[in-house]
């Protein structure tokens, strides 16, 4: 059963990702990206990381996709089409990507992963305690750095998008 669902989600991820990078209409490309991101969140739920799946759905599907749609509606026509690259460039880049894919897959399949046999369930409580732990192996410093980074990005985005004339 899990196998069937995994293959359904994998096919959704890959097909919609390809549609997203090849679609000519930009709003449709954003919708295809949304489907791909939701299928990735489903993979996290299947791996028993419910918190990470929820974060993926909230931040990506809720935040980033909305930002993309807003910017497209601000600067394009709704039916706006993307300028196509030349055919030679498309074929060359596809071959380059396939070459890289082949090399990476050959490396992955020749590496012997020592898969752990035991399974452990993770709760949201464990994740929160680990993130705010300032003892050995705690993640409190990166957590605070990320919060400063988000604040700086917010202020920077406001100042950059405000423009120069109207202060």
């Amino acid at each position, binding site marked *: *059963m*899990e*196998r069937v669902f*995994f293959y359904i989600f*994998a096919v959704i*991820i*890959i097909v919609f*990702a390809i549609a*997203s*990078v090849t679609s000519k209409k*930009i709003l449709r*490309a954003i919708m295809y*990206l949304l489907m*791909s*991101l939701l299928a*990735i969140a489903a993979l*996290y739920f299947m*791996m028993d*990381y419910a918190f990470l799946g929820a974060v*993926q759905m909230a*931040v*990506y599907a809720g935040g*980033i996709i909305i*930002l*993309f749609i*807003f*910017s*497209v509606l*601000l*600067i394009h026509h709704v039916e706006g089409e*993307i*300028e196509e*690259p030349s055919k030679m460039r*498309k074929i060359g*880049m596809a071959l380059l*990507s396939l070459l890289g894919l082949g090399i*990476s*897959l050959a490396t*992955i399949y020749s590496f012997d*992963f*020592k*898969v*752990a046999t*035991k*399974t*452990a369930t*993770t709760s949201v409580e464990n*994740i929160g305690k*680990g993130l705010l732990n300032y003892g050995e192996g705690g*993640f409190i410093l*990166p957590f605070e750095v*990320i919060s400063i*980074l*988000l604040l700086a*990005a*917010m202020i*920077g*985005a406001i100042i*950059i*998008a405000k423009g120069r004339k109207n202060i």
Partner: protein
Amino acid sequence: MIENISIYELLTVSTILFFIGLYGFLTRKNLIAMMMAIELLLNAAVINFVVINKYLFPDMLQGVYFSIFIIAVAAAETALAISIIINLYRLKTSVAITETETMKY
């Protein structure tokens, strides 16, 4: 881990996703479309972190923490890039990369 699914299949999915994103980044001529390709690249990296944490070190959570940090950095990066794109559109009335050759003004 997911029942009956080996680590190789999950890593195959994330590798294919990474190279689809790379193809999009190299062929797109529109700044917003290039940003979407970058999101695919970041997502492939996040899947790798999560899968390796779940399959090789199931009793640790470092991969989950790094995934959360990557998602936060991606959100910040998208907000900044879109504000830059909107400002650029005001100056040039275009978001094609052929129009934006200098970064001076």
